[in-house]
């Protein structure tokens, strides 16, 4: 696997994690307008990143479009991705 894919996946995780947090927070604070603006900004970023990732490596979700043949089945699956050694 080209490690660009792992790097792009990590970017996707970073932006996606903001949405995990804003989503949970908004569930109990639906009237916090500042949090909602943050959510919407990152929602847009996430969509753009997903589209770019999928154009390179195929569908993240079965609802996405794919080149021929169906790229969803391509390796690596998430548990096989090599993110390298921990830099921590």
């Amino acid at each position, binding site marked *: 696997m080209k490690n660009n894919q792992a790097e792009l996946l*990590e970017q996707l*995780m970073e932006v996606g994690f903001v949405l995990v947090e804003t989503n949970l927070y908004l*569930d109990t604070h639906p009237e916090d307008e500042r949090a909602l603006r943050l959510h919407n900004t990152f929602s847009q970023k996430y969509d753009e990143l997903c589209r770019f990732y999928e154009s390179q490596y195929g569908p993240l979700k079965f609802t996405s479009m794919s080149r021929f043949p169906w790229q969803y089945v391509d390796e690596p699956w998430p*548990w096989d991705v090599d993110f390298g050694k921990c830099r921590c």
Partner: protein
Amino acid sequence: MWIYEKKLEYPVRVNTTNPALAAMIIEQFGGADGELAAGVRYLTQRWTMPTGKAKAVLTDIGTEELAHWEMIGTLVYKLSKDATIEQIKGTPFEAHYTNHGKSPFPHNAAGVPWTASYINSKDDPVADLHEDMAAEQKARATYEHLIRLSDDPGVIDTLRFLREREVVHFQRFGEALCLVQEHMCRKKHY
């Protein structure tokens, strides 16, 4: 419904092969306070929650728990996949290997298989949300035990992330409980 996203919630890095550690981390794969129990518990309690906010919290935290279950399975798999038979013999992973090979399986660190008796659903939002808050604290404590047992920096990084999520979920469940109680008080007066 659910739609799978072909990625982990957080990058799982494992620097070493350590089947003994895999056998301990499997506690969070199929133990009483593990991620599977958490996910099934929250998603099962949704039907009888009285407010949209409480239903949302249970849906979204329950869904995140399934993503954590996938991360734990990945930790267990990466710690054991390259282990030789000699590296497995004599470790606590040997009993797991006898039945399941290197496939993760939902049992706890002592080998007891997952059971629905780890969870409950009471048709009582106050009782359910208290159970959920306790579950998050118990999972946090388990992660602290696992972090102390770990000597792989990648594994520790992942376990720290998961521990932090328990703290956030506890906070959100606490807020959901307050909102549910406010809702129940309002209902009594017309």
